[in-house]
C-alpha cells in the first residue's frame, strides 16, 4: 500500500465513529423522517405510502392549526429575550465588585434541567403561589391570576418561562460580542461629547450586529420548536391552549405512535424554520460596502 493511501485510510478510521453516529442519528432522521411523512407508520407494521394524506389531515385538524399559530405567537419571546439579554450584558460588562456573583445568578437557570424549571414554575404559578402573592402584596392585582389554568394566559406564562431560562445563555453570547468592540472607539466618542445613550445606539448596536443576527436566529428557531416546557408544565392544556407544533408532533409520534402524522407536522415545522433562518440572514446581515 502506498503512503498516501495508508494516510487516507487512517484518516477515515479516525473519522469513522463520528461519521457513523452522525449518519445514523443526524442525517438518517432527515431522510427517513421526510419519507415517513408520506406514509402511515406505527412502529410495528411496515410503512404504507399514503401520499399527501397526512398533510391534508394535518391542515384539516383545528388542533394543528392552533398549535401552529401558538408556535408563531411564541416568536414574541425573541425580541423580549434579545432586549433583556443585551441589557444584562451591558450591565455586567464591567469589573464592579460582586459582578461575578450577578453573572452567575443570571446564568443559574441555564444550567438547571428543564424538568426542575417546570416543577419550580408550577409552584410559582399556582393560585396561592409566590407570583400571585407578590403581585397582591404590591397591589397590582386583587384576585389571583390563573397563570396556567386560564386558557387565555397559559401560553404566555409558558413563554415567560422560556425567556427566563434562556436569558443567561444569550447574555453570555452578547458579552462576548461586547468585548470584541474596541475600547478606543468609546473613548473617542466620549471625547466628542457623545452621551451613554448615543454611544449605545451609534457604536454598540451597529458593532453588535453579527451577534444580534446569530442570537436572533438561534432564539427564533428555539422559539418555534419549543415544546419541552409545554410537555412538563401544561401538557398542552388548559383546553389545548398551549399546544405548540412540536408538542403536537410529540403527542402524535411518541404517545400515539402515529408517526406519519407526527413527521408530517415536523416537516411543516422544518420548512417554517428554514424560511425563518433565511429571512434573518436576508434582513439582519450587515450590509457590505
Amino acid at each position: 500500500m502506498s503512503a498516501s493511501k495508508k494516510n487516507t485510510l487512517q484518516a477515515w478510521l479516525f473519522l469513522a465513529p463520528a461519521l457513523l453516529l452522525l449518519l445514523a442519528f443526524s442525517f438518517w432522521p432527515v431522510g427517513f423522517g421526510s419519507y415517513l411523512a408520506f406514509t402511515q407508520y406505527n412502529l410495528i407494521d411496515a410503512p404504507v405510502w399514503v401520499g399527501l394524506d397526512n398533510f391534508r389531515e394535518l391542515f384539516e385538524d383545528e388542533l394543528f392549526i392552533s398549535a401552529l399559530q401558538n408556535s408563531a405567537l411564541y416568536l414574541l419571546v425573541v425580541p423580549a429575550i434579545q432586549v433583556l439579554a443585551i441589557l444584562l450584558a451591558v450591565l455586567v460588562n464591567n469589573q464592579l465588585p460582586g459582578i461575578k456573583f450577578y453573572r452567575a445568578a443570571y446564568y443559574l437557570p441555564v444550567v438547571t434541567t428543564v424538568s426542575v424549571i417546570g416543577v419550580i414554575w408550577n409552584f410559582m404559578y399556582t393560585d396561592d403561589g409566590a407570583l400571585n402573592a407578590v403581585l397582591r402584596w404590591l397591589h397590582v392585582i386583587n384576585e389571583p391570576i390563573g397563570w396556567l389554568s386560564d386558557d387565555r394566559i397559559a401560553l404566555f406564562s409558558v413563554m415567560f418561562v422560556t425567556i427566563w431560562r434562556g436569558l443567561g445563555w444569550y447574555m453570555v453570547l452578547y458579552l462576548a460580542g461586547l468585548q470584541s468592540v474596541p475600547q478606543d472607539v468609546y473613548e473617542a466618542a466620549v471625547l466628542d461629547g457623545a452621551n451613554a445613550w448615543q454611544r449605545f445606539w451609534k457604536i454598540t448596536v451597529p458593532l453588535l450586529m453579527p451577534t444580534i443576527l446569530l442570537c436572533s436566529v438561534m432564539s427564533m428557531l428555539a422559539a418555534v420548536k419549543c415544546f419541552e416546557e409545554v410537555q412538563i408544565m401544561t401538557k398542552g392544556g388548559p383546553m389545548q391552549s398551549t399546544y405548540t407544533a412540536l408538542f403536537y408532533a410529540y403527542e402524535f409520534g411518541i404517545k400515539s405512535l402515529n408517526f406519519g402524522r407526527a413527521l408530517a407536522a415536523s416537516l411543516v415545522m422544518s420548512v417554517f424554520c428554514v424560511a425563518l433562518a433565511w429571512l434573518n440572514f436576508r434582513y439582519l446581515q450587515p450590509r457590505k460596502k
Partner: protein
Amino acid sequence: MEKTLPMPRAATAKKINMNKLANRTLHYLVLTLLAVITVYPFWWTLVTALSTSGDVFTYPPRMWPENPGLDNFVEVFKTIDVIAFYKNSIIISVLTVAGTLIVCSMAAYPLARMQFPGRNIVFGAILATMILPSEVNFLVNFITVSKLGMGDTYTGVILPGLAGAVGIFLMKQAFEAVPNDLVDAARVDGATEWQIFWHIMLPLARPALAALTILTLVAAWNQYIWPSIVMASPDKFPLSVGVLYLSGAFSFKIRVVAAGAVLTVLPILIVFLFTQRYFLRGFDGAVK
C-alpha cells in the same frame, strides 16, 4: 448652548462624584432586581424544601424556612428510589462524557492535521448537522433506537448524542494550535498517526478537553426529553426524569417535591459554581 456659571474646581469634582455614586446605585439596583427574578424561584424552592411546618404557600411569600430540617429530604428517599435515579444520572453522564471526548477528538484529529481526499466534504457534512432541524430528530431516533433493540437502555440514551459538531470543532481548534515542529519531529522519529494523536495531541489539548468535559457533563445531566422517551422503566430514569415522576405521583406533597427538585439540581449547581469560567467565558479576555 446652555451657559453654566464657572464653578470652583472642588465643587465640580464633588458634583461628578455625586453623579457617579447615583449612577452606581441605580446600576446595582437594576442588577439586584434582575437577580431576584432569576434566583428567587430557586430560593423559594429551597426554603420550602427545608421548612417542616406551617403553610406551604404564604402571603407574602416566605423568605426563610420555618422549623428548618431535613425531614422532606428523608421523605423523598422513602417515597422514590432516589439512589437509583442518582446512579442512572451518573452512569449516563459519565459515559456520555467519555464517549464524546473519544469520538469528537478522534474525528477532529484528521480534520485538523491530515491531508486526505474528501476532507472538505466531511467537514461540510459535519457543519451541515448544525443547520439540520435537529429538534425533530427525536421522532426518527426513537424509531431507530427501538429497532436496534436499544429502547429502555443506557446505550439508547447515550449513543445518539455522542458525535456533535460543536465538540468536533472545539477539538479541531485545539489540535490546530499544536506547533508543527512537534508533530514533524515525531513523524521523523517514526511515530504513527495514532501515537501522535495519543501522545502529543491529546496531552496538549487538555484545556479543550476540560472545557468539553464540563459542558458535556452539564448537558448530559440536564437532558430531559430524550431519556424520558427512551427509558420505559422507572428504575432506569435519570434524576431529571425521576423528579417529574415524583411531582406527578405526589403533587400534593409540595415540600417533598421541592426537596426532590433540590436534590436534582444540587450536584450540577456545585459543578457550575466551581467551573463557571467555562460557561461565562467571553469576559475573561477583554476586561482583565
